[in-house]
């Protein structure tokens, strides 16, 4: 039960950081997606259900904050899928090993790319913006920036993994 409330607490903190502090780290209009890092972390360390649940509710809150743009439900959908994919990598015996190595970055990159592909496929419906252009200008840079931001937790896990 304690772990459940801790997960909710950390989820809300990550959401708060994403909406208040992260926009000030923007390179142009590209920002790292801390929520996705957290969802992938949950997928690797706890499996499908916590990752998908966090993905759905955090995505829903992000959609709500985006204003009345007719896309409520979009981030919840894409982040649920990302959580589901990350959940496949759950292995109780290798959690720290995955989190402290390049596998974490690979899983995050894959989840981020699928997340962005799905996101733009729906987001750009009816708009006269090219889908591939949006992926190149937004999807890939966002994935790279998210990977860079994920280096910090990776180093923390690597240190913990090395400490006997």
């Amino acid at each position: 039960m304690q772990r459940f409330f801790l997960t909710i607490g950390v989820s809300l903190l990550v959401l708060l950081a994403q909406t208040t502090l992260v926009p000030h780290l923007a390179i142009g209009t590209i920002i790292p997606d801390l929520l996705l890092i957290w969802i992938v972390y949950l997928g690797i360390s706890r499996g499908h259900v916590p990752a998908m649940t966090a993905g759905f509710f955090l995505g829903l809150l992000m959609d709500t904050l985006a204003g009345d743009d007719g896309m409520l439900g979009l981030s919840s959908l894409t982040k649920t899928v990302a959580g589901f994919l990350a959940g496949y990598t759950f292995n109780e015996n290798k959690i720290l090993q995955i989190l402290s190595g390049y596998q974490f970055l690979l899983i995050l990159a894959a989840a981020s790319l699928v997340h962005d592909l799905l996101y733009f496929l729906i987001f750009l419906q009816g708009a006269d913006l090219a889908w591939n252009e949006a992926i190149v200008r937004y999807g890939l840079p966002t994935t790279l920036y998210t990977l860079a931001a994920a280096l910090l937790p990776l180093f923390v896990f690597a240190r913990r993994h090395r400490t006997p």
Partner: protein
Amino acid sequence: MLKRLYDYAVLFKEYFLLALFLLLSTALLARNNSDQVRAIRSSTLAAAGVLQEVFGFVPAYFALRHENRVLRELNLTLSDEVNRLRESRLENIRLRQMLGLKERPAFPYISARVVGAQLQTGRNTLTIDAGERNGVRSAMPVVTDQGLAGKVIATSTGFSVVQTLMHKDSRVSARVQRSRVNGIIRWNAGRMLQLMHVPKTLDVQTGDMIITSEFSSIFPPGIRIGVVSATRQIPGELFQVVDVSPSVDFDRLEEVFVAAFTPDSSRIALQRRLQE
């Protein structure tokens, strides 16, 4: 039978949960304009706005010295410009009276602080700390001292969400100030805007100022949007490509003004009647 179904549900719980969340998300996407969804948005916006306001001081503090210097420089430039504009305005009033032209209506500005920014993969919106109790309504234009920033798309009692020009749904009727060529400004999915629907034969040059035009029913005319940074002619295309660098620096937006501009209702009614 029920026991078996339950066993299946437990065994494949992740797939059931995935289906449930996808179903819920899709249902929400389909019901985006309902009153209930709008009410939920408004309440969440109010709660999140309070939190964002609390944490909003952190970056503002670090940017304070830079901002002070920029403001001092701007103050000098503007003082000089105000003097010249005062003269021009008096002259303009005299000339309008001579020609019998109608005076453009003035409208109040509501100042607001940017307390949150959503730069989420193409949904570039801002949260500001002015809402319905300050007189802010949906579709009101939002400007800064640099020019047009966007328009209000959602409001709660104390906060509003602003759709910036860097949004896929943003469209603004615009005009080249020098040659009076009209077009539509939209975002190009990068850091630039584009002036659309400008035939190749019309006169648009690099460095031209782009302003809002009289054709818009949302934005008042004459607000700066940006400067033409490049023009390109693509063979076989009817229109030229006009890249516009926005006047507003969206990376450093901290203070904005909501223009309490309400378009002429009789004009909108007439336009609607003609469309029908």
